[in-house]
């Protein structure tokens, strides 16, 4: 089945291809979870990946920065190519930021230290530059005053915003968000989505795996629907929601809207 390629008219997309996935394959033991996925994301685009659990969307997202080793295909991010034989993924990872469902802040470091760590040991910036970058990143997510707070002293929403700041400080070309509001209490979801919305408006390239359908519809340029390890439909959110072309997507939309 070939993906339905609908021309995309994203708000801030520049037309310059930034992320290109070709023929991505991945198996866990005998189970093939990605069955040759092709996908391209332009600079400035905001793309949401949706689908049932087990459809491969998180695995695909995690393969973009090498957290899942792919079995076949090529990943290209801003000219940096990675294939299954590649061992050193650091060059790729410096171009790709990632925010996780469980925040994954370093518990023994303050919010500021969480942000500064990779600037110091990966980018080898000096102390003053590191501190300034961390302060700016935390201010950007509205937590400038929490520089010295430990993760255990922050709410889930605040922790997730620190995690976003930590990724942003590394100046990635694209930010991957893996169900970043799924572990949050309902009243804390909005503050995190607010930060993501602001990033989208500023032209950050974003690829999100999300179950927040309303958010996806409002903020994303493009929706990618995965089913059974393949992308079976993609296009502008309004189009997909209102006129799903496949029975699988129609059924999925029916399920999430019935919640």
């Amino acid at each position: 089945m070939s993906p339905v390629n609908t021309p995309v008219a994203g708000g801030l997309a520049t037309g310059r291809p930034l992320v290109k996935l070709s023929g991505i394959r991945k198996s866990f033991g005998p189970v093939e979870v990605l069955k040759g996925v092709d996908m391209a994301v332009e600079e400035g685009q905001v793309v949401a990946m949706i689908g049932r659990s087990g459809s491969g969307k998180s695995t695909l997202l995690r393969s973009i920065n090498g957290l899942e080793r792919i079995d076949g295909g090529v990943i290209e991010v801003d000219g940096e190519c990675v294939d299954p034989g590649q061992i050193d993924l650091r060059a790729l990872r410096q171009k790709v930021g990632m925010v996780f469902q469980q925040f994954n802040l370093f518990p023994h470091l303050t919010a500021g230290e969480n942000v500064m760590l990779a600037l110091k040991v990966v980018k080898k910036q000096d102390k003053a530059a590191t501190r300034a970058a961390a302060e700016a990143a935390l201010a950007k997510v509205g937590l400038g005053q929490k520089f010295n707070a430990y993760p255990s002293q922050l709410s889930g929403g605040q922790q997730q915003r620190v995690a976003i700041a930590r990724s942003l400080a590394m100046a990635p070309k694209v930010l991957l968000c893996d169900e970043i509001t799924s572990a949050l209490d309902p009243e804390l979801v909005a503050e995190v989505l607010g930060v993501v919305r602001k990033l989208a408006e500023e032209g950050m390239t974003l690829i999100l795996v999300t179950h927040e359908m309303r958010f996806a519809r409002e903020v994303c340029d493009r929706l990618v629907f995965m089913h059974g390890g393949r992308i079976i439909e993609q296009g502008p959110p309004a189009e997909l929601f209102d006129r799903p072309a496949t029975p699988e997507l129609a059924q999925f939309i029916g399920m999430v809207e019935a919640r």
Partner: protein
Amino acid sequence: MAYSFDFSSLLDYTPVLVDGIVTTIGLTAVSTVLGVALGIGGAAARTSTVKPLAVVVGAYVELIRNTPFLVQLFFIFFGLPSLGIRLAEWQAAVLAMVVNLGAYSTEIIRAGIDATPKGQIEAGASLGMTGPQIFRYVVLGPAMGKIWPALTSQIVIVMLGSSVCSQIAAEELSFAANFIQSRNFRPFEVYFLATALYLALAVALRWILSLVGGRMFAKGVSRA
């Protein structure tokens, strides 16, 4: 029972006792620092993806943990000279204690490393950090915090175990006690005092280690 206790006869031997205490503290301090450092290296090796390294360290840990400390000490002090390696008493004592604590602390620290949430390692990797950087900056601090009480107990055991080193004439506290009772024939008083001194040393050591651990590894309260 007409034994009359006489602790005053111990006063003459105060310098011997003080020397013994200082030696015990010195042996413990040096072997703790080196032994824990060895344990951190051993735990890193045992959890690394380099299989041969993990196997070699695993063999070392099992060898040391399944043989008596006294035999390890005798092997180093009496056995190694056959290979031309001659060590002074204190050198042999330190080496035996370091090798012994290194093996036990490898296992203890490994447990702490294994308890690190996988997501934190992934977060480090996705920030572009190398494996060794992730180990040093992300994994090690919280791991040490988690196992610090267990490691403290092991260090106290090694301190008390240093008494075995009197058997190769390392002049630590037990050696001093032996020496004194062989001169004044007051074994009850001497060993009573030695027991009290070991107890005081152990309590003090636990207290100091708890302070150190609180300062260095109490996650989310102070910096690591």
